[in-house]
């Protein structure tokens, strides 16, 4: 009997109660087993880069913060680093430490958010509520330090906008103590719980070879055992001095299997790593200025004169985020702005992860890469009013053409199969 007779197609999304954001999966299932999956993105394209290129750089900074509600430090850090490289702006050392503190606080809240979501997707809502209850502590500290619960508006070109005052340091230290004491309990609830292990062990496996081949980033790659972390591989800010090491399940004494369980291990261990980094930064932070441009008109004038291109990268909680920016003298708006969000690199990991899994595990596998679709969607294909499909060769050609158009110099990669 031909196998294909038993294979059924289940479309899920773009709008579906199980999905937090619009993306479409088309599963080929045979009984309870998933045989293949097709992922289609592009439903949440907002044209945010286009909007940014019609605003001055300060307005674009706050627009970049709204690319993602959770990574609302990561995107501004990447864009400020890019603009600072393009415009040759120095960042005072204290501001670099403050940026690290804020981005590590964000990592803690993002990873705890993910842990809660993962518990919910497993049907373990008690754990969801407990995790999100303890997450409030870090959000309170972020509100105390920045004035906002989310969308902190902290980085600015040349520094940061708010300092940590001596009165606030004990509050941050209290938060660090709170989570240190709690982390062991959280690890206990997630990693030593037999029902969590039963639902996540050997589910959604991404082998190191696949992770490497598909260019997975962040905890998704590290859970497969790849020692891949932008803070370690291409240090920026003061991460080089802090000596960040990529965390893999080996740090917990486990050989990496690349399954959902390992992804939880990596994220929970990274909460501890972030606590250490914040503590080190608090004590090592030098005194001094927090921005090289205290006056906004001077900053606007400097940015208007600036000419050049810059690349900024940052290890967001979900992985590597890259911003490319090109400035021209006499123009307030960026001439080109390109954003690569971590989920863009991780999206294709879904295909091997879903292979040969059960339908009931779809939500947890989908959630295991911590997808952020609205960050990632940078294009929506429409041809004659209906959705269009492009193949790999077309995409390569289009992306090289766009790179040449944006950067103004020819793509360094040799073309093959092109019509030139």
């Amino acid at each position, binding site marked *: 009997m031909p196998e294909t007779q038993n294979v059924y197609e289940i479309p899920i999304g773009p709008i579906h109660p199980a999905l937090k954001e619009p993306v479409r999966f088309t599963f080929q299932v045979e009984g309870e087993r998933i045989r293949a999956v097709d992922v289609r993105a592009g439903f949440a394209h907002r044209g945010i880069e286009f909007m940014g290129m019609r605003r001055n750089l300060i307005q674009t900074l706050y627009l970049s913060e*709204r690319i993602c509600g959770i990574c609302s430090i990561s995107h501004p850090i990447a864009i400020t680093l890019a603009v600072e490289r393009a415009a040759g702006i120095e960042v005072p050392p204290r501001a670099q430490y403050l940026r690290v503190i804020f981005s590590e606080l964000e990592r803690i809240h993002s990873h705890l958010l993910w842990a809660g979501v993962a518990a919910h997707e497993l049907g373990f809502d008690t754990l969801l509520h407990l995790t999100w209850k303890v997450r409030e502590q870090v959000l309170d500290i972020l509100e105390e330090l920045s004035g906002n619960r989310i969308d902190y508006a902290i980085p600015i070109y040349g520094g940061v906008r708010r300092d940590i005052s001596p009165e606030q340091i004990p509050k941050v230290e209290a938060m660090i103590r709170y989570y240190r004491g709690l982390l062991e309990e959280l690890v206990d*609830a997630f990693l030593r719980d037999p029902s969590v292990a039963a639902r996540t062990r050997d589910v959604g496996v991404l082998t190191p070879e696949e992770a490497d081949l598909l260019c997975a980033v962040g905890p998704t790659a590290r859970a497969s055992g790849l020692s891949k972390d932008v803070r370690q591989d291409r240090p920026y800010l003061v991460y080089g001095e802090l000596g960040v090491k990529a965390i893999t399940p080996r740090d917990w004494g486990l050989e990496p299997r690349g399954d959902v369980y390992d992804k939880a291990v990596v994220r929970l261990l990274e909460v501890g790593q972030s606590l250490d980094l914040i503590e080190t930064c608090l004590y090592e932070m030098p005194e001094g200025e927090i921005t090289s441009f205290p006056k906004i008109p001077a900053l606007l004038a400097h940015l208007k004169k600036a000419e050049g291109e810059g690349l900024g990268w940052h290890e967001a909680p979900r992985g590597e985020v890259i911003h490319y920016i090109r400035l021209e003298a006499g123009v307030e708006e960026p001439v080109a702005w390109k954003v690569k969000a971590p989920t863009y690199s991780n999206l294709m990991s879904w295909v091997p992860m879903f292979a040969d899994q059960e339908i009931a595990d779809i939500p947890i596998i989908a959630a295991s890469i911590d997808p952020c679709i609205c960050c990632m969607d940078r294009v929506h294909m429409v041809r004659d009013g209906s959705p269009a499909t492009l193949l790999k060769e077309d995409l390569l050609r289009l992306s090289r053409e766009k790179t040449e158009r944006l950067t103004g110099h020819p793509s360094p990669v040799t073309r093959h199969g092109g019509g030139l």
Partner: protein
Amino acid sequence: MILKTLFSQLLTKPATNRFPAKYMPKSVLGFLSRVKEGKATIVPPVPVPPRFRGKIAYSREKCIGCQLCIRVCPAKVIEFLPEAKKIRMHVARCTFCAQCVDACPVDALAESGGFLLSDTDRSSAALTVQ
């Protein structure tokens, strides 16, 4: 850990603040009008931290009409009034980044602690600062 935490929660106060009343009133508007008449008391919201970025406070006297805030505002909240050389802010659009406060050369703008800004009319007096 979970069982211990769950049982201990039976004896502790809820983690959330019971705003605006301990038990949900039948009608929130009716409850608020009773609060106004002094017949009921409101459970106050959690206090905000000292440098909270709430609704922007504007000092019309100090403003010199330089329009710098309009240039930096990412959400285009601020409207210029050319005759008076003053500004009007539409708070419904505000993203609370307070960049205008940083940019203002004469400190006419400040962050206030106000955050209870919901309204059915986006151009109501409570949502317009001028």
